[in-house]
């Protein structure tokens, strides 16, 4: 009886019987395959898509594609990145109309008809090409009250917290935000309501509100109850769907809504 092993061995030997030129050519042509990449070029006054042919490579990320264009096709292309490993939150862009962290987005995951479209983040002003102006994003981060209000001075010992309390467990689900602004770009409420603080800022406020070391949680509730506050969220969930770190800002905003409603009934806020 012929075993599977010997059958495979025979088959492979038969393939290898052909001159290895064919194999080498196939490998070469595969490595020389190119894809169509459309990149948004322009500045705050306007712009449009520019097309490039970029060589396809194994394990290639969208950030690799952008870097290749800048290094080999057009050195004037502007974009932003830093760590390249999904920690710094600098390199988010719109890829085929979807906000993504480009350093951790594989080309093969998003390539459609051998083409990719890369644009600057939605809902933010453009500085140049793929570099969006992050100022509104971070201004709202501050406006949402996402600043720690200390209860102790640096001379006192560090307060020990129980990591198993419900508040701390809930906080843990929201603190791995890398400020990439993917959720902000994904949010339809941000795009139709310029005052809305956005998912990341509100999630930050929620984690600080839950912090037992924060001296004044009511300041946070006031900050998120204004005209651009958490009550403007329609719970569409694009933030949660697109967050590259798998966080759930929609849940955090729901938490803030509950906290503000409870505060409304308690103190007539």
């Amino acid at each position, binding site marked *: 009886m012929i075993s599977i092993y010997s059958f495979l061995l025979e088959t492979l030997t038969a393939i290898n019987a052909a001159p290895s030129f064919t194999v080498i050519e196939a490998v070469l042509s595969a490595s020389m395959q190119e894809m169509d990449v459309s990149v948004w070029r322009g500045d705050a006054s306007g712009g449009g898509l520019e097309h490039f042919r970029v060589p396809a490579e194994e394990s290639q990320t969208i950030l690799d594609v952008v870097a290749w264009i800048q290094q080999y096709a057009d050195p004037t292309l502007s974009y932003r990145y830093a760590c390249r490993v999904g920690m710094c939150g600098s390199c988010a862009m719109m890829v085929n109309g979807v906000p993504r962290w480009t350093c951790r987005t594989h080309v093969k995951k998003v390539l459609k008809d051998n083409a990719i479209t890369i644009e600057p983040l939605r809902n933010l002003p453009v500085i140049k090409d793929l570099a969006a102006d992050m100022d509104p994003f971070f201004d709202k981060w501050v406006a949402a009250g996402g600043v720690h209000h200390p209860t102790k001075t640096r001379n006192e010992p560090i307060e020990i917290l129980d990591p198993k309390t419900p508040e701390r467990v809930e906080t843990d689900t929201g603190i791995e935000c890398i400020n990439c602004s993917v959720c902000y770009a994904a949010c339809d409420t941000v795009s139709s309501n310029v005052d809305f603080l956005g998912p990341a800022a509100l999630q930050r406020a929620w984690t600080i509100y839950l912090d037992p070391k924060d001296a004044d949680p009511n300041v946070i509730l006031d900050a998120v109850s204004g*005209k651009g506050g958490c009550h403007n969220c329609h719970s569409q969930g694009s933030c949660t769907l697109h967050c590259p770190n798998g966080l759930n800002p929609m849940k955090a905003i729901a938490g803030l809504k509950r906290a503000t409603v409870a505060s409304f009934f308690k103190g007539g806020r």
Partner: protein
Amino acid sequence: MLGLRLYMAQRLSAMVMIPLTLGHIAVMIYAIQGGLSAAEILGRTKGSVVWFLFYGLFVLAVSLHASIGLRVIVHETLGLKGRGLEIFMWLSGILLLATGLRALFAVTL
């Protein structure tokens, strides 16, 4: 655009409207199934304190709820904001209240 007070007003009015809407639908189905004429319906509602309170509360809740909802829609789709948005919300609320009260008075007084 939507602070805590307006949010609470809209949510609380929605909670008031849930049983009233169900009651209203039940009344409509009952009136049609039973084949009541307009005169017969008016005969039951005219002078009724219960129907006055039922539909009076309904009109108030709808005016409040709908005008805040329209405020959100108009802001997010047409970009109206500031004083214009406030005027729009109040006018739509007053219009709903006036037409609702007109109908209420017509069938219950």
